[in-house]
């Protein structure tokens, strides 16, 4: 079963009331692959990631992790979420805990790692991400870039098999975007499987194995970055990229 996909979305549908947000999404993610999701706000990128992490139940279709349908209602969702890391646009660090405890709390509570060991490992993780001098700080004492790196460390501490990145640089000042993207790049080098919703087109072009363009809850175009960015076939993709280019973002 070596050629199996790591994560598969099969005709995933999701609606909030009458508002159809995901309208039949099919997507296969291979082990170690980095796939970026691009598209306008409201195209369904964030919802797709939240559904893949079971934070939102899907209405129809299936989400398959390592050949197992994890969207089956009644499944132990907590046990699955710990295998999938998620990074949020607004960091969502726990403001009442120090940086090291933010990173250590997941392994302590979920994996029953003893406190001292969990904190030692958290420290190592933070050193790895260049945060050694912020270990005992609190989240609101950090810059946005540092907060997002702590959030990545918190997620990595659980040893995730797949990571979902939800516009993780959108809330950052421009000069802080680079330090976070550098971490993403190093994750790719280590072979992490990632689904990455982003507005950073240059970075997406650079890092992705494949790019998906979402519009109105559907993947309208999918392919290697050179093709999607260089010679988009779908007319809506062309228009979206034109707007991005006009705005000086590509």
């Amino acid at each position, binding site marked *: 079963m070596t050629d199996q996909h790591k994560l598969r979305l099969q005709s995933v549908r999701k609606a909030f009331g009458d508002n159809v947000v995901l309208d039949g999404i099919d997507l296969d993610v291979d082990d170690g692959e980095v796939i970026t999701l691009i598209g306008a706000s409201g195209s369904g990128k964030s919802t797709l990631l939240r559904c893949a992490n079971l934070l939102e139940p899907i209405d129809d279709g299936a989400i398959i992790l390592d050949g197992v349908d994890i969207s089956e209602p009644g499944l132990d969702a907590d046990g699955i*979420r710990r295998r*999938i*890391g998620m990074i949020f646009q607004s960091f*969502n660090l*726990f403001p009442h805990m120090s940086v090291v405890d933010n990173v250590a709390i997941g392994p302590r509570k979920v994996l029953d790692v003893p406190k001292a060991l969990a904190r030692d490992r958290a420290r190592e993780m933070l050193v790895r991400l260049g945060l050694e001098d912020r270990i005992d700080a609190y989240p609101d004492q950090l810059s946005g870039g540092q907060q997002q790196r702590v959030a990545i460390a918190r997620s990595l501490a*659980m040893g995730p098999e797949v990571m979902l990145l939800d516009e993780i640089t959108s809330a950052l000042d421009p000069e802080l975007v680079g330090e976070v993207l550098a971490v993403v790049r190093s994750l790719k080098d280590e072979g992490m499987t990632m689904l990455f919703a982003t507005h950073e087109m240059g970075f997406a072009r650079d890092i992705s194995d494949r790019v998906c363009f979402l519009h109105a809850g559907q993947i309208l175009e999918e392919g290697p970055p050179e093709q999607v960015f260089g010679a988009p076939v779908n007319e809506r993709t062309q228009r979206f990229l034109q707007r991005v280019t006009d705005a000086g973002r590509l």
Partner: protein
Amino acid sequence: MSPQTRREAYERRQRRRSLLIASASTVIVVAAVIVLVPRAPRWDRVKTSFFNRDIFVDTFPGLLRAFWLDVQIFLWSLPLIFVLSLAIAIARNTRSPAFFPLRAFAVIYTDVFRGVPVILTIFLIGFGVPGLFDSRTWSNPLIWGTVALVLSYSAYVSEEIRAGIEGVHESQRAAARSLGMSSRQTMSTVVLPQALRRIVPPMMNSIVSLQKDVALISLIGPVEILRQAGIDKAKFANFTPYVGAAVIFLALTIPMTRVADYLLARERKRTGATVVA
């Protein structure tokens, strides 16, 4: 001394000016009170029946002693209220269908005890329940009066806690759940610690109220400060003991209110709300 900026010089002038105006107006008002109040009609009678020095000195120690009972009831009630209201708030926040009866109970509980006057609850439980027991220990109105207070106040405080829980942003829950935490772990390690920090200021106001409402228990029997004051008042046919009781309450409630205000201001500052000049 370092040279002043224009702004500092301006603010210094303004401060001096405000101080001058405030002092002047205070002097005028105080003088008016001193001069005019004794000239008010029947001031002598007000003085003898409310501010009688001899009676005050005579009854004050007894009032203080009786107040100790109020303090005891207050101190007993506090932890009970905290535990019960926390349980009710958590019950209201459960989401699993199996807990529906618990949720329903919590809703009914808060509706009923918030909707009924505290004094009515005290009468019902304080007079009613002791009659159900034969043994003397369990028919003590002190116990049931305290129970009534705890039940009433838990309804209010649980709503404050619930507001605190709901005030923790949904994204905090999402972050905890995405780490694989169960909903219970999310509640205990992420949501509650943040919620409890937030509710300290509103809870302080309830605590101040409770401190006063303990006196309501006097109406079902125990000789605490209000009842003692009533006894003294009847004995001397004079209202000074009530004034003495009020002084004792104020000595506690005013500092407590100031602490509550301070905590509220600190919380506002911490959450980053800026003060507009």
